[in-house]
């Protein structure tokens, strides 16, 4: 989906006043005073909090990519004001309320959800929505009115005379009398833009064959993207999809457990690539891959090939051997076999699990499944 931008404003941030009423003091914080601020006003094109959160996330990625802002909401680099209204299909937009100064994507979503529910509640009980400004109390999860004695501020705006109108040109109308440094040509700017998130995702999905979910994951995290690219650079023969699969499933799990970020990852991309190569060559199973990654993440310094030797983690390709494991599984788990035949698929898993355990995870689950099913249908 796309969201329209209807207005862009460049402003200067002002100071903040902190009123300490007990001590009759006001503290004036001018640390942000004079800092350039950009306000982006979107069209009301979003219909729920998820879309709103996605928009904010995407804006963050774009602005970070073009080096405008670090967009760290927790630092105050990016703030969101949400304008919410509800209406029935076919009817015009309802009266909106504005929730100001949301400083995390989570709060954006929560505040919008609350406000939508609030609008519904008011309208369904026969009330009217008042066009007002509200703030979000994250402790209670509710929005509260910021109205000050029903007075509307008249800001007495006038156009800033120190900033002459900004004329923006493109290749078709750039004035020939001006040098390129004297005027703005958006075509020139566009050509100089770095690759934007949408383009990156498109490339990952269509050129590298990744799933949309994985593409989103990579583009949203610069460090992760960097790691991923390093792995592919170390071993260009690897299929991106496979690399990403191991990365997302196994490595991230280790990082999460150890409460580390990818930038702190001890396991070098080069070594990670070796593991992926083994998997791609079908020398090991996915189960083994997981165990291997865990070992190496936790400090194992031996090269992956040696580890496999030591633990005897080679993938079992001998069908006869697999067959034997399967027969044993069927034999030892008659109840499971019976229940499965009665139409309860989850008991099949028990059989597969038996084979995997006995084979130390070195059997291909697809092959195991195939053989087990054959066996079960033969036994009657």
């Amino acid at each position: 989906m796309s969201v329209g931008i209807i207005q862009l404003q460049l402003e200067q941030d002002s100071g903040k006043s902190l009123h300490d009423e007990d001590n009759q003091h006001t503290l004036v914080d001018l640390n942000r005073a004079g800092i350039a601020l950009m306000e982006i006003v979107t069209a009301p094109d979003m219909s729920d909090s998820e879309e709103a959160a996605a928009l904010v996330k995407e804006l963050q990625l774009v602005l970070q990519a073009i080096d405008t802002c670090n967009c760290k909401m927790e630092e105050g680099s990016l703030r969101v004001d949400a304008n919410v209204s509800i209406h029935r299909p076919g009817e015009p937009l309802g009266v909106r309320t504005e929730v100001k100064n949301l400083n995390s994507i989570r709060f954006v979503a929560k505040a919008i959800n609350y406000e939508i529910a609030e609008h519904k509640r008011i309208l369904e009980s026969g009330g009217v929505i008042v066009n007002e400004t509200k703030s979000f109390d994250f402790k209670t999860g509710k929005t509260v009115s910021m109205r000050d004695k029903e007075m509307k501020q008249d800001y007495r705006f006038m156009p800033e005379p120190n900033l002459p109108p900004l004329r923006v040109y493109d290749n078709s109308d750039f004035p020939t009398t001006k040098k390129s440094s004297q005027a703005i040509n958006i075509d020139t700017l566009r050509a100089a833009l770095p690759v934007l998130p949408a383009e990156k995702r498109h490339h990952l999905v269509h050129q590298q064959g990744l799933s949309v979910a994985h593409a989103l994951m990579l583009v949203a995290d610069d460090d992760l993207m960097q790691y991923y690219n390093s792995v592919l650079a170390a071993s260009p023969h690897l299929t991106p999809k496979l690399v990403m699969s191991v990365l997302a499933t196994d490595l991230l799990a280790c990082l999460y457990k150890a409460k580390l970020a990818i930038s702190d990852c001890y396991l070098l991309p080069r070594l990670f690539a070796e593991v992926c190569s083994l998997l791609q060559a079908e020398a090991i199973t996915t189960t083994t891959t997981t165990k291997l990654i865990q070992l190496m993440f936790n400090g194992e310094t031996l090269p992956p090939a040696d580890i496999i030797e030591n633990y005897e983690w080679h993938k079992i390709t001998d069908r006869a051997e697999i067959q034997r494991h399967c027969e044993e599984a069927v034999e030892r788990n008659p109840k499971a076999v019976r229940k499965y035949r009665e139409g309860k698929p989850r008991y099949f898993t028990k059989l597969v699990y038996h084979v995997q355990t006995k084979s130390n995870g070195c059997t291909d689950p697809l092959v195991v499944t195939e053989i087990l099913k054959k066996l079960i249908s033969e036994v009657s």
Partner: protein
Amino acid sequence: MVLLTAREVALRLRNGSLSSTDVVSQCIERSRLARVLNAFITHTHESAMSRAAEADRRISAGQPLSQLDGIPVAFKDNFCTKGVKTSCGSRMLRNFYPPYSATVVQRLAGKGTVMMGKTNMDEFAMGSGSVDSIYGPSRNPWSRSVRYRERRLGDAEPLRVQATSGQVSYSLPSSTEEQKTCEDDETLSDEDDWLIAGGSSGGSAVAVATGASFIALGSDTGGSVRNPASYCGVFGYKPTYGLVSRHGLIPLVNSMDAPSIFARSTDDLAAALEIVAGHDIRDSTTVREQYKPFSLPDDLSVKDLHVGIPTEYHAPGLSQGMLDAWSWVADLFDNAGAKVSRVSLPHTQYSIVCYSVLCACEVASNMARYDGIQFGHRSEQGSSTHALYAATRHEGFNDVVRGRIFAGNYFLLKRNYEKYFVKAQQVRQLIAEDYRHVFSSGVNVLLTPTTFGDAPSYRSFIGADNRTRSMQEDVFTQPANMAGIPAVSVPVMLSERGLPLGLQLMADNFHDKQLLTCAKWLESQVNFPRFDPVTDS
């Protein structure tokens, strides 16, 4: 050395017959003699002497930084000067020492000029007399010439001015009394029986007229440099808006303010312009085109010049003396072969009202920064932040400033915005179009009076309030600020009372060279007396 031009002195500096130290010392002395005129708020004599010494070193080594290396300059007290008090004539900034210098200050310093001090002005540049300053009013040095004669003659016999066949001669009755200088003249200490210097850049005009400085900068928003130039008998030149950076000039009306120049000759104006003009990245309203410096030609002819006389400038209230001067100069051009014709600027009559609205609106915005928090005056009172702001602003601003803030706030209310602000902007466009139309029809320069007549007395000037005075005084000068076009006041002759009369020349945007060239020709024709108001010689 008395009242030489900067160019003349620069020549002597280069051939060694004068040193910058000599020159600066003499300027300091003249400033001392004329101190009763109250031209300066702050003197920077110590640093001036050391800068003069540095200039002398450079010049004797054959490495002057510019034409004006070693030449004294002064700045109106609304130009920020690093480490030197910048008060804008107001209580609000009387303890303000800027941490940076305005671009024009930096540029002039970078080319070797020597700052003599900061000059007096109407508070925040609001006014046309230089009488509304917390440091007291500035006085016109020519006040003395009237009274001196009166005292010598016993009664006020008018000065005989003969304007025949293009030449003016002044017959000053001979005197037997010993000459007195400004310093000894007690008559000037009379509270109100002296003449105003004009404003709001009166201090700078007086500094140049008395020889306390060779060049002085002022700011011209509605005529604030041209007006006192006319009254004090010096050149006052407002460049095209956008040619000179306003960075560091504490603003009155951002869309009209122009850092402007006082000097005793047109060549000096051009020399100063060359140093200060040109794009400044810190001022987005300066034009980006590379500035092409020029010097004024010495062989001047007006044969191909088309001079326009706008009929609307024939305003009721013009003194006979000014009318005579105007037609005399028009004849000068005519006789020298220029084409002189009547033109029309039909929206002139709306200019002053339009200005009142737009000025007040910008003032309301510009004065918002004075809240006593970061710099400037802060009130002792304040039970709350709002009380602090209110008390600070009440104490810090005079009633002229406060009046304009209130007016501006009113005009900018949502319900009034269309009716006042937008309307005034539309009228402003019409006024600018009047000039565009006239200049595109072949007219090169416009010739008008600068003021209604010669300098009024303080007593008569304060008979009306600041707002009324400003609306009256600015009538001839203000439209040029509306359109942004360059304009210069040229001292052309003395009135019957023996006081200077200035005429204004205006040209199209960015035709500053043509304007100053025309002014130089006029300068050479009128032979305005080199009268020293300090020593009366």
